[in-house]
Every structure is written in structure tokens, then in C-alpha cells.
């Protein structure tokens, strides 16, 4: 059972004024030849001195390591937090560990993550806690505070140990099906489809013998004086780019709306990935702890966790221009559909205008909108997309 941390001095005989009085008592006892009194005073002074010197050495050769497992989780899930401490010297010490937790993480009992105990010579000690994640975000655990002292715990010395971070993804929720605006001309998207859509030119490459002659890009071949062939996109690649706009989500009054928006975006990304759509993400918000603001559309291993991590790191502070990001990264190729998530239609009018000009099929997910805006086409209220819990 963890004990609460104690404040204040443990014994009055560790206080300098009291020790001063004891020293006076020793002087008096020596003057009057009171052997027992002198012995008691000497013992107390020696105790304080030894404890102080012991404490001074207590932090030497103390090593600690903070272990978290898992480091990535969803709200409501638990992680195991362990603090390994080793005393690599002959001197036994008392040690207290206190791991500061953010408000979004808490121990199972609700008590602070603080424990103490003795470490004898060359001993290792492990403290375990079970931590529950309460909210999305990138939460820093620590730096752990180590207090070491003599075995009586009279004069503790402190030092800071390692810190670590936990990534809590947005909560995944059930969603109503979202109809993506599709413009494929050559059948239903499928796995490794042999059919290429000649309308969606991806690029050119050297002509491969055996390929149909109709794929030869004659103009380019003439220009480069060698045979080049067109590379077209296959009809399976119905790719979805999620554009998350930070505008309008700032301020504590919008914190709930932001979390709901991120939950929908994360759930949608997972849903699309399960439907075998390559999914990408672009956001102009600040990412806590750094990270890529633009993730290209793919279905590679780790893409989804990277996307969820970006959402976990998201903070509603506009750092970049989302249009510049879209045009600079050349993400909007011919078969891309965009799902934008924003606070309202009015928050990002330039983005919608840009997408309209590029004729990119877009679904606009908005946190707040008026009824007449819903009829404007492809505008979906975030709350309407949320399914039954």
C-alpha cells in the first residue's frame, strides 16, 4: 500500500537550534562531570553528524530507469510504469521516488505515484504503478524525483531522474458510413488491379519491352530521344487525404469540440484503412514534441499508428498555411479525395476555394455549421457522423 509523502522534519533532534542546545548540554555535562548526560548529548550530536555525512554520500552510484509499457495507448487503457533503482555502493540508503504525472494520467488508486523504501548494499528495487490514460495527448511522465538519505531518512538529498513520454491516441468511436465522392472510371477499386486508368497519368518511365505500344508516350519519347511509356494509376488506389485545420479550435471553450473532431478523424482514418484505402493526413496545427505535419497516402505498415500519433500530438495552434502545404507536397494527384475536418466552414474558406479550383472531390466535416450550409453539398456535421456509442 503506497504511503503518502511526508513533509517537514522527521525528528526535532535534526534541527540545528535543537542540536545547538544539545551541544550546550554537552558542555554543561562535561563541566559538571555528568557522564551519562555527556554520553547522551554526544550520541545525539554523533547521530546527526553521521546521518548528515551519510546523506551526503547517499546519491552516489544510484542509478535509475523509468520504464513504460506500452508507450502508445488509447484513452481508458492502462500502462505499466516501473521505476528501477540500483544502489551500486556498500552504503545502504533510504530512497524515495516521486513520479509527477500530468492530470491526464493517474494511478489506479488515484494516489500520487510516490513510493519509498530502503536499499541495502548492491541492491536493486523496482516500484510498479498501473497508470490509466484519461485523455488524448502527448503526456510527459517525470522527470522522476529521487530523494536519498541515510537509513533513518533524516537528511534527504534530491536529484531529478529521467523523464519519458506517453502518447495517448484519440478515442476511437463508431461512425456512420461516410460516402466518399468517387470519380473512378474503371470499376470498383480492388487489390492489385491489373486495370489502369488511362485518364490518370502518374508519370513516365523508360519503355519496358512487352508492354502495349499504346502506352508509349510519343511526345516525351521524341523530346528525350528514347522510348518512354506512360505510367497510369490503377483503379484500386482510391486514396483519401484528411486535411485537419486548426483554425477556430483554439481556446478552452473549444477543447471539447476539438477532442470530438479528433475522435471522428481518427476513427475515420481507421475505418478507411480497414476498407483498404490509402490514407494520408495534412494538418496546419502545432504538433507537441514535433513530428511530420503531412503524411502521404499509403497503406504501409505503421502508417496508421503514425497518423494516430500525429493526431495525438495535435494542438490547436495554427503554425503553417495548409494551402501551401498541399501545393508544396504535391499531395493532390488525380485520384485523391479529400476529407477536411475543421471547426466551421467560415474558419477555412480559402482551403475550400483552393480545393474547388483544383476540382478535388471533398467532404467537409465541420464541428459547427448552420442548417442551410448542410445543403450546400458534401458538408457533414461531425456529430452526425458519430454512431451509437
Amino acid at each position, binding site marked *: *500500500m*503506497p*504511503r503518502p509523502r*511526508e513533509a517537514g522534519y*522527521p*525528528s*526535532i*533532534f535534526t534541527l540545528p537550534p535543537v542540536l545547538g542546545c544539545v551541544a550546550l*548540554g554537552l558542555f554543561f555535562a562535561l563541566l*559538571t562531570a*555528568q557522564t*551519562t*548526560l555527556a*554520553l*547522551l548529548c554526544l*550520541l*545525539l550530536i554523533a*547521530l546527526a553528524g553521521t546521518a548528515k555525512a551519510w546523506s551526503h554520500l547517499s546519491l552516489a552510484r544510484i542509478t535509475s530507469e523509468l520504464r513504460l509499457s506500452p508507450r502508445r495507448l488509447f484513452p481508458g487503457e492502462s500502462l505499466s510504469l516501473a521505476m528501477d533503482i*540500483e*544502489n*551500486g555502493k*556498500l552504503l*545502504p540508503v*533510504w530512497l524515495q521516488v516521486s513520479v509527477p504525472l500530468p492530470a491526464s494520467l493517474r494511478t489506479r488508486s488515484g494516489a500520487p505515484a510516490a*513510493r*519509498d*523504501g*530502503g536499499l*541495502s*548494499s*548492491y*541492491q*536493486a*528495487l*523496482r*516500484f*510498479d504503478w498501473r497508470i490509466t490514460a484519461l485523455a488524448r495527448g502527448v503526456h510527459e511522465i517525470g522527470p522522476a524525483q529521487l530523494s536519498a538519505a541515510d*537509513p*533513518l*531518512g533524516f537528511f534527504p538529498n534530491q536529484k531529478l531522474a529521467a523523464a519519458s513520454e506517453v502518447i495517448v491516441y484519440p478515442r476511437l468511436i463508431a461512425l456512420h458510413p461516410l460516402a466518399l465522392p468517387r470519380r473512378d472510371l474503371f470499376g470498383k477499386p480492388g487489390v492489385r488491379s491489373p486495370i489502369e486508368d488511362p485518364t490518370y497519368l502518374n508519370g513516365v518511365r523508360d519503355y519496358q519491352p512487352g508492354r502495349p505500344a499504346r502506352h508509349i508516350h510519343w511526345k516525351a519519347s521524341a523530346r528525350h530521344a528514347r522510348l518512354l511509356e506512360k505510367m497510369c494509376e490503377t483503379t484500386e488506389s482510391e486514396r483519401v487525404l484528411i486535411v485537419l485545420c486548426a483554425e477556430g479550435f483554439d481556446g478552452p471553450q473549444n477543447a471539447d469540440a476539438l477532442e470530438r473532431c479528433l475522435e471522428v478523424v481518427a476513427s475515420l482514418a481507421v475505418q478507411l484503412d480497414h476498407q483498404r484505402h490509402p490514407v494520408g493526413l495534412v494538418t496546419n496545427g502545432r504538433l507537441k514534441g514535433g513530428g511530420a505535419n503531412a503524411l502521404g497516402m499509403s497503406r504501409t505498415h505503421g502508417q496508421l499508428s503514425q497518423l494516430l500519433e500525429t493526431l495525438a500530438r495535435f494542438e490547436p495552434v495554427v503554425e503553417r498555411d495548409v494551402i501551401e502545404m498541399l501545393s508544396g507536397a504535391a499531395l493532390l494527384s488525380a485520384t485523391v479525395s479529400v476529407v477536411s475536418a475543421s471547426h466551421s466552414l467560415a474558419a477555412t474558406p480559402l482551403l475550400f476555394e483552393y480545393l474547388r479550383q483544383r476540382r478535388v472531390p471533398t467532404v467537409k466535416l465541420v464541428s459547427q455549421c448552420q442548417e442551410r450550409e448542410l445543403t450546400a453539398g458534401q458538408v457533414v456535421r461531425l456529430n452526425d457522423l458519430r454512431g451509437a456509442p
Partner: protein
Amino acid sequence: MKRGADVALVLARGALEVCVMLAWASLTLAMMSERRYTLGLALGAFAGGAALTRFCSGHRLRWRSPLQAAGAVLGALYTVHGLFAPTEPFSNFFWLNELIRLPPSAASWRVAAAFCAWSVVLWIAGCRFAARSDAYREVCGRFDRGLLWLFALLFVKLLLRQEPGVWQTQDRADALILPYFVFGLIAIAVARNRSDGRRSFMRGRRGAGLFVAFAALVLACGVGSTLFSLPFLHDASEVSYEQLAAFAGPFGPVIVEIVLFFLRGRMVLPLPTSGRSCA
């Protein structure tokens, strides 16, 4: 391991409390008579009170206070029995009838009252000890309080020594200061270093770690126990010597000569005197 630490903490805390009270009992009773309050009597009263309180709280008995009062009275009677009829068996209470029929002098009653008072005090202290928390701060607080009581005791002794003729006898209070200190440190260290974390030794250092831990444990417990019981072992040896001399009869001087033969050059045994310890 945890259970062992808990037991060690209870024993050290108990010894801490007993040391202070026994020192004061030794001082006050030494001022009234030559009889001494024995370690066994003190431990019996204290442990009896603690055990009864523990038993009552464990079984949620409703009649806790009357039981504790009865225990205190029994302890006081045992003390009186030890003072006035140590050779009679305590259980048949025949000695009590004799005591009422042939009451001792008023001075003896005063001494008996003082002994009984200390038995009751120790009994109550045992009861309170069982109900007290064993948290680190509490143990430190008790250690501080005990030290202050010991300082007060030494101050009182100092004042008494200033009055010529008042202080004639030697008490055993001084001898309890060192064990108090040792048990205090053990109690504080055990209370401080308890932990529910998982322990192990560093790789390749298990032997050294175990040796140091074992040596520290043995040293602390050995020094504490020896210092605690040393004055009373001295008393016991005196009593044994007197008993030996009394029961050996005509062979007494021979046995004493044999003992002296072995101990000659190391110490000088005092001549047997009248019984000095209670119970």
C-alpha cells in the same frame, strides 16, 4: 521478509517504550527502597497490556475496557506477590489472605503501591502501544519524546545529587540510555525502510549484499539486546550467586572457592547480601 520487518519493528518500538519507563521506574523506586523493578516484570506488564488490546481489537470484543482493567489489577497483584510472598504460588491466592491477615508496615505498603503503580503504568502503556500507528513519523515522534523524558530524568538525578544525603542508592536508569538509543535507531530505520517494491541484488553482487545486510542485522539486534538486558543479567547473576550460597549449605564456601578459582584475577565477587530484586 515483510513479516520479519514488521515483527522487528514491533519489538524495537516496544523496547523503546519499555526502556524509558523502566528508567523512570528504576529512578523513582530506587529513591524509596533497595528493591528493583525487574525487566521481566516490566516486559510482562507491557506485553500483557499490548497483547490483550491486540486480542480485543482482533476479535472486536465489546468488553475491552473491563478486560484491560482486570488485567492491570492482576498485574498489580502479581507485583505485590513478588514483593511480599515470592516463594508462595501466585495462583492459589493463599498469600493474599496471609497478607491481609498480617499486613506489613506502612513503609512497605508505600513501596508496594509504587511498584503496583508502575505495573499499571506499564500495562496502560502496553495497551496504548498496541493501538498506536507504526508509521515513520509516529516512531520518530516517540523517539523524540523518549529522549526528552531521558533528558528530564538525567536533570532530576542531577538535582537530587545536589542535595547531600538524599541520593544514596544506585539506580539502573543510566544503563538503559544506550539500549534506548540502539532500539530507537532500529525502530526508525525499520519504519523508514519498509517497502512493497520488488527487491533483488545487482548481478554479481548478491554475496556481498547479503553479507552486509546480515551483518548489520545481527550487529544491531545483538548490541540492542545485550545492552537492554545487561543490567538485569547482572542482577540475575547476583541473585543466582546468593541462591547458590544459600542452598549449598555447608558446601557453600567450597563452591564459592571453586568459582573464585576460575574467576580470580578477572573480577571480585561481592559477598552475598539480602534479596534485592522484586519478583
